[in-house]
């Protein structure tokens, strides 16, 4: 009988474990959120994280945004020319950036740069018992380590996304107008006329959701790193992969909801 019941038992155990893991994941965020609101307030911790997540990512974001804008300018110009609507280049570049590529690419780049660092830092703190050391000193490690990172991500992601959008639009201008010769005046006029507050709000919502997701996943994975030699590297890999996948899934979901 055992060989018949065993698969069912395993399936049940797997299901229970998955649901429990999801529960732990949720409780982790709830605690971090609660401790972000409860005193004592340590704004300097959040400010330090804004520097690490936000300010230190500005150069990378600018670089990627410029490159993305250039490609959009080139592809957009060549495509629009077939329909004789080069004048719409600015609108196309801006819409694509503000609604989709800005939030998504900024989030993916920050995941690679700051998210991985977050997971690795918390992971090594967990593995070397620094997290326990905080608890022993009666300092709540979630409040001290996780809440500031989540707050910082919520502040940094929209700002980085905004930088990405603006730089990208200028990148598109440089190639589309400067190099390929699309009409200069209609590039920015088109953006002003056609980009609605709703488009901007869509991008903003996305960046907030992505920021929360990345900080949540990366902190969770790092915080729960296994106490063994490969614990930190494994946590970091899982954090980056899961964050990236969730960003893309959320993006589709949010696009369909906010459309």
């Amino acid at each position, binding site marked *: 009988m055992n060989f018949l019941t065993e698969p069912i038992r395993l399936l049940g155990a797997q299901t229970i474990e998955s649901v429990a893991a999801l529960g732990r994941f949720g409780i982790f965020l709830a605690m971090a959120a609660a401790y972000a609101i409860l005193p004592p307030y340590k704004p300097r911790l959040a400010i330090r994280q804004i520097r690490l997540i936000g300010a230190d990512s500005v150069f990378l974001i600018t670089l990627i945004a410029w490159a993305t804008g250039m490609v959009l300018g080139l592809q957009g110009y060549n495509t629009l020319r077939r329909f004789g609507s080069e004048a719409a280049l600015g609108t196309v570049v801006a819409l694509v950036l503000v609604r989709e590529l800005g939030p998504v690419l900024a989030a993916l780049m920050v995941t690679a740069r700051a998210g991985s660092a977050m997971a690795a830092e918390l992971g090594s703190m967990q593995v070397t*018992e620094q997290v326990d*050391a905080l608890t022993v*000193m009666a300092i709540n490690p979630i409040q001290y380590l996780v809440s500031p990172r989540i707050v910082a991500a919520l502040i940094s992601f929209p700002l980085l996304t905004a930088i990405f959008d603006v730089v990208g639009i200028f990148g598109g201008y440089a190639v589309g107008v400067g190099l390929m010769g699309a009409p200069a005046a209609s590039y920015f006029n088109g953006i002003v006329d056609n980009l609605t507050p709703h488009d901007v709000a869509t991008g903003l919502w996305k960046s907030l959701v992505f920021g929360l997701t990345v900080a949540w996943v990366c902190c969770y994975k790092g915080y729960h790193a296994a106490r063994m030699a490969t614990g930190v590297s494994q946590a970091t890999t899982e954090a980056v992969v899961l964050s990236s996948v969730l960003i893309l899934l959320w993006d589709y979901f949010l696009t369909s909801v906010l459309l």
Partner: protein
Amino acid sequence: MTSPSADNANRSTDYAIEVWELTRRFGSQVVLDRVTLRCPRGLITTIVGPSGCGKTVLLKHLNFLLRPNSGKIFIDGEDVTSLSWRELDRVRQKFGMLFQAGALFDSLTVFENVAFPLVERTRLPRSEIERRVREKLAAVGLEGAEHKYPSEISGGMQKRVALARALIQDPQILLLDEPTTGLDPTRSGAIHNLIRQTQQRLGLSAVLVSHDVPQVFHISDKVAFMYKGKIRLYGDVGDVTHADDPIFKAFLAGEEIAEDEESLQTKPTLRVEAR
């Protein structure tokens, strides 16, 4: 001597820590198997045993980093097994802990590490914090290293910093997890002496986990030998070190403890004193 029991009445306060029938499982693995142990006030109680036998897990139960599946813990006679988090923070103030790997914050300097509990938990003025930190660093022989980072100093110095940090809030009970692991014999001896001096000077109760035998016995008052999640021997250091127990002797000789030796079901000569 009364034997420890689950009721709260008439708890003796001669003991800084009493652990009664503590059991802890991780999944299906029983890591602590009905551990009963008493740590007298003002003395060093040393827990020795092969690695993986559950020493660190036991130590982390003493200051509530881990919670037991069953059993009770008394600190200064107070049952702390089922206290809330907020109350636990109060009891935690009695403890200083030195972790196995030091657990220094590697983004902070030596000074900031030692000052950390004061900066985060108190409203002391900067000058007072500085005074206390310098005093503790001097006590562990580390003047002049204040502005170095943990990665820039030797393993022995890291242990000293960790000890200074454990002492900064003037604890009554010191928990030390393998303070000499990874050090050469000379440095181990120096750390052992430092621990003994500090403990006697401040009149601390200490629980020391180590597998640095027999050196660690020189600074121990009570010794517990832990084996496979159980306290196998417990008593005064002189009695335990001469105990006629084959598994303990094999451990002292640094031998791998054979499985068949266990199956002999040898009865250890010394039981936990309290039974």
